[in-house]
Every structure is written in structure tokens, then in C-alpha cells.
């Protein structure tokens, strides 16, 4: 394969690699990731997760700026089968456990693009859920773990600027139990208490944060 048709633009693989390496160089020498990780990201992951991890397809998550600890956990759990996804399944032959730390560190070092707000009318309700939760139904405020601006930390993922559609899908998957690799079963307990409207609103609000 010498290139791929990427939303109407024929991009050569080496161009992508070079672009990624250039982006990497802009951020200086970050320990933990190598040119190999950038090449892997640029050749395999980019088709869905976008250049520099900034996916432009709402169903596919942005990985740019995500915490390396979270990315490592997810990648390892895709490999072990603890997290399952039909789109990721055929990709799992393309990398191994040894690639995970460098790949995670590479994506963590990429600069995230701002998120897109689809329905600004949901932002106020989303902010209320994000900060205060729902006292009646026992939904905790998301910011307790995910931090005041959804920036996450070493233990909880960054959600700021993430695609609303992706975040919403994950909450629904936690609610139904389709996704069950959450730490301490906490996200399943939270999502189970949330209504569809609450999830839509809070996902929209998180997409609006940077």
C-alpha cells in the first residue's frame, strides 16, 4: 500500500509519518515514545483516530492529549479482550503489548484540537450534571473524578473536547454493561443512574471544554 484515500485526499504513508514526526519534534523530545510509535500511529491508527490522534469522525475517539496511563490500560485491555469493540478487533494484530507504552506516550504528547458543540442548548444542563450530578437519583458530579475542566488525571481519563457521540456511546455501553472494564465498577454504577437526556447534555458539555 503506498497511500490511502482519506476523505478524498490521497495521502502517502511516508508523508503522514513525516508529518507526525514533525509534530512530535515541535513538542521536543518526549521520553517514552519513539519514531516507531509515531509511525505505527500514522500508518495504522490514523485511519480512524485522525492525524495526531485528532479524530474527525464523531464515533471514533480523539486520543490526542489523553493520559498515557489511560491509553495504556485501554490498549492492553483491547489486546487481552477485557475491552471489546468490533472496529478495533481487526486492528489488534497490528500491534503488540510491547508497542503499548510508546504508543500511549506518543498520543499523550499530541495536542488536542477543540471539540465541536452540536447543540449549545444542552450546555447549561450538561454543566449542571457535570459539576453537581443529580442529587435525587444519586448521580455524582463527573468533575469529582474527571476534574473541573474534564482534563482528567493519571487515574481518570480526559474527556474535554471529546466527540459527543463517542462519549455518549461509552456511557450507554457502561449503562448496559457492554463495556465493563471500568475501575471499581464505578462508571457502570454512575451510568446506570443517568437518563439518556442527562448523558446527551453532559457529553455535549464535555465536548465544549478544552
Amino acid at each position, binding site marked *: 500500500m503506498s497511500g490511502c484515500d482519506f476523505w478524498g485526499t490521497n495521502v502517502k504513508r511516508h508523508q503522514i509519518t513525516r508529518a507526525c514526526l514533525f509534530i512530535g519534534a515541535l513538542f521536543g523530545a518526549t521520553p517514552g515514545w519513539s519514531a516507531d510509535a509515531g509511525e505505527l500511529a500514522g500508518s495504522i491508527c490514523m485511519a480512524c483516530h485522525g492525524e495526531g490522534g485528532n479524530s474527525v469522525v464523531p464515533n471514533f475517539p480523539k486520543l490526542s492529549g489523553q493520559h498515557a496511563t489511560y491509553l495504556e490500560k485501554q490498549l492492553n485491555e483491547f489486546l487481552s479482550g477485557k475491552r471489546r469493540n468490533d472496529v478495533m478487533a481487526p486492528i489488534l494484530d497490528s500491534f503488540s503489548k510491547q508497542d503499548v507504552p510508546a504508543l500511549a506516550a506518543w498520543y499523550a504528547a499530541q495536542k488536542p484540537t477543540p471539540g465541536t458543540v452540536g447543540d449549545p442548548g444542552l450546555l447549561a444542563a450538561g454543566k449542571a450534571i457535570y459539576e453537581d450530578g443529580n442529587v435525587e437519583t444519586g448521580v455524582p458530579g463527573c468533575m469529582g473524578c474527571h476534574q473541573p475542566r474534564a482534563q482528567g488525571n493519571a487515574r481518570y481519563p480526559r474527556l474535554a473536547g471529546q466527540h459527543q457521540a463517542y462519549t455518549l456511546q461509552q456511557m450507554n455501553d457502561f449503562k448496559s*454493561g457492554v463495556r465493563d472494564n471500568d475501575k471499581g465498577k464505578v462508571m457502570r454504577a454512575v451510568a446506570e443512574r443517568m437518563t439518556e437526556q442527562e448523558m446527551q447534555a453532559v457529553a455535549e458539555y464535555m465536548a465544549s471544554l478544552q
Partner: protein
Amino acid sequence: MKKHLFILSLLLAAATQTGAEENQPHAAGIESDGYVWNAMYAEKLQALSARGDALRGEIAFEICQGCHRATALGRPDGSYPRLAGQHATVLIKQMTDVRAGRRDNKKMFPFIDKHAVTPQEIADIAVYLQALPVPPDNGKGDGNNLARGEEIYARDCIVCHGNKGQGDSARFYPRVSGQHYKYLLRESILIRNGDRRNANPDMVSTIKPYDDKDLQAVADYMSRFAP
């Protein structure tokens, strides 16, 4: 027949309950014969004898912050209590009692369950919270009946909860100063009515004679102690 069908449908409903949220277990409490207040059992002893670490506690407390807030000051509407400045012993007792199902709290259970925190983390969280500052901006009552509140407090509460509402760490008596009025009132009513099942029987018999108006007065009085 109708009754049987009803019971069957209840059983079916219970059996088909879906989702991940686990039900809080049910442990014998004050409603049962031979209830011993603050009885020790393995997990509580384990947490009480562990050396708590405040830094680890700050991290373990993250999953509590969505409700109790980042500085553990709870909410003035009483929905979630202040935990900042509470005695570590009291916090450990309450956390392990909720976990064991001796204090009913369905909302909190998934976040204090064994999947979420270890006994060591319970100890860590407790020492972290105990040292947090307690500002005087807690929720207060309407201030209309403070003389009655003071009278009740001096007669029946001061012996255990102290002249400044400071409680008694060694005896597992909670600090009440700096706590939100609405939380103090809600728990007082639960204790009086026998609905807080891990309550101290002495506390229950002491609070029994008081009506809601009295409890409002004394909760208001307690909420005004300088924290």
C-alpha cells in the same frame, strides 16, 4: 392465588434485575435482638488498625468527590454531609457500616463497595479527611428557636458531643460542629425513628422524647458552633 402471583412477580423482578449496580447487603442492626453498637468485625478492625496515609487518602477520595465535593465540605442542602474535619474513627465506622449494610445507603454503596476501595484506602481516606480545614460557611437553620436548641443540647447532647460540638474520637462520637443543619436534622430524625440502623442505642433513647420542632432547634444550635 393472587397473593402467590404477586410474590412470584416480585421474585421475578428481583431475579431479572439487570445492570451492574449491586444491591447493598443487609446486616442486622438496631432493629434486631442482641444488637451490639459498634461491634468489631474483621474489616472494621483492619481499617481501624491500618496506618492511614493522607496522601494516598487524597487520591482514594477522588471517587467520593462527585458528591461530597473536592474539599469534602458536602452540600448545604444536606444531601451530602461534610466530611472535612470529622474524626477518622467515626469516618471508618460509618464507611464500614455502609459497606457491611448496617447503615442503609443505596446511593453511596457502589462507591464504598469492595470493588471501589480497600480497607487500607478506607483508613487512608479517613486520615486525609480528618485533617481538612472546616470553614464556618456550613448550612444553618432559620435561627428562630436557638434558646430551645441550647437547652436541649446542654441537657442531653453535651455529655457525648462536647461543649463545642467536637465529639469524641476515642469513643466514635461524631463531631457535629461545622456540619450542615439539614444533614444534622435528617440524621437526628432517622436516629430517633430507629431508621439509622447502626445507631447507638443510648443515643436513640436520649433523642426519643423530642419532636421534629425540638430537633430542628437543636440541629440549628449545633450548626452554629464555631468549627
